Structures are given as structure tokens and as C-alpha cells.
């Protein structure tokens, strides 16, 4: 007999924190102290992870493909840059939110174009919007600084207390805290009825509408939220590097993001985070070994991932950690494994 308590227990099961998740964040925090000389690349990874989390929200949960996610990254980046450069809002956290909201507004406005089509149309529309913004940024170089980008951005201390230092320590912790807070929010949202309805829409839009889900409204909402996330990622980029140039809108940035999710997997929130780490590590590794042809090796890794299948790779990689957990915990190992697209 199914009881109300049973249902409640099982319904909330996915939303419970697992030991592996806690371990993940402890490792992340530990890295901050173990590699004090690598703050710059770690900051870069954190920002890429946040950007990928944004794409995961629409791709992994709502099933919206995008090849132009850099549009929102770029708006956030230029937004934060312009606010700081002209001293409109000098406090970084408030400027960050304002830049994020600017990206969010753009996300809301363009969502009406994006939700209309099917996958291929969406790819083209999102790509087009990003290219359009890049062209606009180039045309209005008096505002954006054109190909040189915004020059002479100076950042005020965060909350008036923590100044950005040359080692990138403040910038790293600032980015990491933002990532963690936005991750918590995303985690909360995907385990809500709203989040579940997105997965239902991705699974079967016809049935989703047939149980009373306002499909378009939900897609607009998540697309707008994802734009906010991407905008924050872009703003963090500008604030920590004091740079904002045309390449924030570039096609490569959007395409790399897809690769990050191909590596990490979609639909379980950690895909973008793990993918960002692996992607940047591979990039570093290959560009040290072969500065000219590193892209070839990245490409090869992707082909292997697609051919072998991520689920199988994960099993191989996690074989040892799971064995250790099984030894000590006396139960079946449960290190994070993508739930989304089992291949």
C-alpha cells in the first residue's frame, strides 16, 4: 500500500544532498588552498563552470539547444565593464547583479524567438542573435571600444572591503562564492515542481501540455533565468580580468560551452562544473605538449567520448573511488554519475 509518507519520502529523494556532492564541494574548496599559485586559471574554470551551468539549465532540463549562449555572457561582460569604467555603479556585487539583469532582459526578449522553433531553428536563431550582438558591438566602437575592447577598467573593492589583488585571490573566491550561491539556487529550482515540469517538457511536450503545463511560459522563464546566469558569468569575467573585448560574443565561446557539456554531461547540474574542469585541464595539457595542434587533441578526446559513451567512461574513472567508498562505507559506492542522458 502506498502511503502519503512514502510518496513524500520518495518524491524528495532526488533533492537530498548526497555524500558525493558534499565531497565534491569540499574538494573544490580544498583546491583553493592547495594551489595558491594557480588562482588565475582556477578563476577561469569557475567562470566557465557557471557559464556551463547556465547552458545546462536550458539544454539539460528544458531541452533547448543554443549555439549563441555567448550573447548573454557578452552582455554581462560589457555591462559590468561599462558600469565600472564610467563609475556608474562602482560596487562590484551590485554591478554584477545589474549586468546579470541586463542579460536577463535580453534573454526574456529573445526567448520568444527561441521557443518557437525546433532544434535546428533554435541553433540558428541563437547563433544569429550572438552574431548580431557581436556586429553591433563592433559598429558602436565608441561605446564598446571596438576590437581593442574597454580600456582602463578599475575595480573598486568588493562590498568596500575586499580589494582585487594581482594574484587573483580575491577574484577567485568572489567567483567561487557566486558560483556556489547560484548553484544552490539552480539546485533548488530543478527539484521544484517547476524544475520537474521542464524535464517533462523536454521528455514529451505534447503530454506536458495535456496535463496543464503552460509549456511556452515555462520555457520563457527558464531561458530568461539561464540568460541571467550567463550574464553573471560574463560580468565576473570582466570584473576579475578588467577586460571586455569583442571576443566575449564570439562563436567559439558558445561552441566551447557545448563541448564542456558534451564532456561533463547534462541534466544533473554537475556536468557543466566537471566538464569545465576537464575541458580547461585538457586545453592546458595539450597546449603545453603541442602548442600548435592542441585543438586536434581536444577534438580527438571528444570523438572518443562520443564513441565510447560517457556513462562507460565514468564507470572506468570512478572504479577506484567507488571501490574505496565500498571498502570504508561498507555499501555500494555512489559517486556522482550523470542521470540525464544515459548513452
Amino acid at each position, binding site marked *: *500500500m502506498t502511503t502519503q509518507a512514502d*510518496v513524500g519520502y520518495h*518524491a524528495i529523494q532526488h533533492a537530498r544532498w548526497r555524500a558525493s556532492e558534499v565531497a565534491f564541494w569540499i574538494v573544490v574548496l580544498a583546491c583553493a588552498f592547495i594551489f595558491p599559485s594557480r588562482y588565475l586559471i582556477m578563476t577561469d574554470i569557475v567562470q566557465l563552470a557557471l557559464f556551463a551551468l547556465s547552458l545546462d539549465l536550458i539544454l539539460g532540463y528544458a531541452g533547448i539547444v543554443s549555439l549563441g549562449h555567448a550573447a548573454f555572457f557578452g552582455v554581462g561582460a560589457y555591462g559590468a565593464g561599462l558600469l565600472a569604467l564610467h563609475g556608474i555603479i562602482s560596487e562590484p556585487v551590485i554591478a554584477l547583479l545589474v549586468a546579470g539583469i541586463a542579460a536577463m532582459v535580453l534573454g526574456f526578449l529573445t526567448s520568444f524567438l527561441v521557443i518557437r522553433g525546433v532544434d535546428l531553428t533554435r541553433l540558428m536563431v541563437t547563433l544569429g542573435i550572438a552574431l548580431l550582438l557581436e556586429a553591433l558591438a563592433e559598429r558602436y566602437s565608441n561605446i564598446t571600444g571596438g576590437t581593442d575592447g574597454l580600456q582602463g577598467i578599475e575595480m573598486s573593492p568588493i562590498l568596500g572591503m575586499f580589494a582585487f589583488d594581482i594574484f587573483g585571490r580575491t577574484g577567485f573566491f568572489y567567483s567561487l562564492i557566486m558560483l556556489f550561491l547560484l548553484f544552490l539556487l539552480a539546485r533548488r529550482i530543478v527539484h*521544484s515542481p517547476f524544475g520537474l515540469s521542464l524535464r517533462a517538457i523536454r521528455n*514529451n511536450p505534447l503530454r506536458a501540455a495535456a496535463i*496543464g503545463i503552460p509549456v511556452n511560459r515555462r520555457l520563457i522563464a527558464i531561458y530568461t533565468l539561464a540568460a541571467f546566469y550567463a550574464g553573471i558569468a560574463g560580468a565576473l569575467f570582466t570584473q576579475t580580468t578588467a577586460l571586455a573585448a569583442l571576443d566575449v560574443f564570439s562563436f567559439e565561446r558558445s561552441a566551447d560551452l557545448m563541448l564542456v557539456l558534451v564532456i561533463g554531461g547534462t541534466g544533473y547540474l554537475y556536468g557543466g562544473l566537471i566538464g569545465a574542469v576537464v575541458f580547461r585541464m585538457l586545453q592546458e595539457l595539450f597546449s603545453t605538449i603541442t602548442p600548435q595542434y592542441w585543438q586536434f587533441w581536444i577534438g580527438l578526446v571528444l570523438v572518443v567520448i562520443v564513441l565510447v559513451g560517457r556513462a562507460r567512461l565514468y564507470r572506468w574513472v570512478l572504479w577506484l573511488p567507488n571501490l574505496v567508498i565500498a571498502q570504508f562505507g561498507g555499501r555500494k559506492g555512489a559517486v556522482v554519475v550523470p542521470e540525464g542522458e544515459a548513452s
Partner: protein
Amino acid sequence: MTLALETRGLEKSFGGLWVTRDLSLNVRRGARHALIGPNGAGKTTVINLLTGVLRPNGGRIVLEGQDVTDLPVYKRVLLGLSRTFQINQLYPDLTPLETIGLAVSERMGRGGDWWRRMGTRGDVNAEIAEILARFHLGDVMNELTSTLPYGKQRLLEIAVAIAAKPRVLLLDEPAAGVPESERHDILAAVGALPRDVTVLLIEHDMDLVFSFADRISVLVNGALLVEGEPDEVSRDPQVKAVYLGEAADA
């Protein structure tokens, strides 16, 4: 006589092909109404028009006295029009618990909650538990839908539609493809619906239609041929011609 569902002069064409012609259906409140007709008569098109998946070229659709012709699918559901599909339309990556949970949440106006986690509302949980138990889905509630046996998936298909607490329920060949042994569960569930819920059944199986329906509309080539009590319809010479003709072909 109060009508739960009514169409007035409904018309639909695909290109030059008219699949629904001047169709006026009257489904009384609380009726067990069957819509039958030979293959290609346009029955599924009628369902798609009623639910809002397709927009008619002309005519009106009235649900419980309210004109819903221009409303999108989800609004009609919230007004009490729910359906099952001839071919299961489920969420392969979700569990029965999640599937029913969503339907119940949406009906209670909680589907847009983005802060509260699933499973933290007692009233929603109670209804989910009740529906899972009624459809014998409790033991598989945490399995992925794609891994369930066909009979269970069919039950889930109907459970989802009923979780929306419809005023009018459209059943599109509910027993299609279900083995005889599991048919009983489905028919029992449909039979156990409260009397004031109106059911419009679309079905091929004549035994099922005549054992279930208290009123029958016969659709041929997208137009209404006959509407009446089961006795009248079964005696009607036109219906006999259509069905015997078809039977002779088969």
C-alpha cells in the same frame, strides 16, 4: 439537459482534404458517450480539435458552457478537459511518482512553484498516493517509465489523465494493445469514475463500446452520421451498412 461538451459546426481541413465537416456533437453532463466510426473517419482529429492540439477552420467548441475554441491546450486542461492518447504519451525519463506528481501539482496551481521542493506538500502527496494506489502503480513508482511493462504504462497513461481531475475525460482507445488479463484494471478504473464526470470514449472495440456507453455518435468521413442510444444506433440501417460493409472488407 445540461451539456458538458458541445461542438457547433466544427470544420477542419488539411490542405484540400476535409477531415471534419460541420460536426455538431452534444455530450451531456455525466454521460458515458462513445464516438465510433470506421478507420479514417476522423475520430482522432476530433479529439485533437477538442483538446486544442489542432485549431478548427470553423465552428465553436463549448466546454461546460464556456467557449474554449481559442484557448491553448493547457488552459482547457485547467478548465477540466483531460485526455488519454491512443499511443502512450509519457515521460520516458521520469518515474510514475514524478509523472503523477506533476499532474497533481499543475491542477492544484502549484506547478509553477520554483522554490518549494517536490514532495514537501502534504495535500499533493496524499493525492499522488491515492492515485498510485488506485492504479496499482505503487510498487513501480520509482522505476523509470521507459522500463515499465506495456500494461503498466497504459495504466499510467490513464492515471495521468485522471490525476488532472477532469470534468470531461476523453479516452482515445484506452484498451488498445492491452492484453486481456490487464484490461480489467483499466476498465475498472474508468468505471469507478464519479458519475458526474463526463466520459467521451473513442473506441474500435464494439463489445467495449456497447458495454460502456449510454450514448453513441457515429462518425463517417468526418461528418456525424447518427447520434443516439446504443439500441437505436445498433438498429440503424445506415450504421449497419457502414459497419457491415467494413466488416465484409476486413
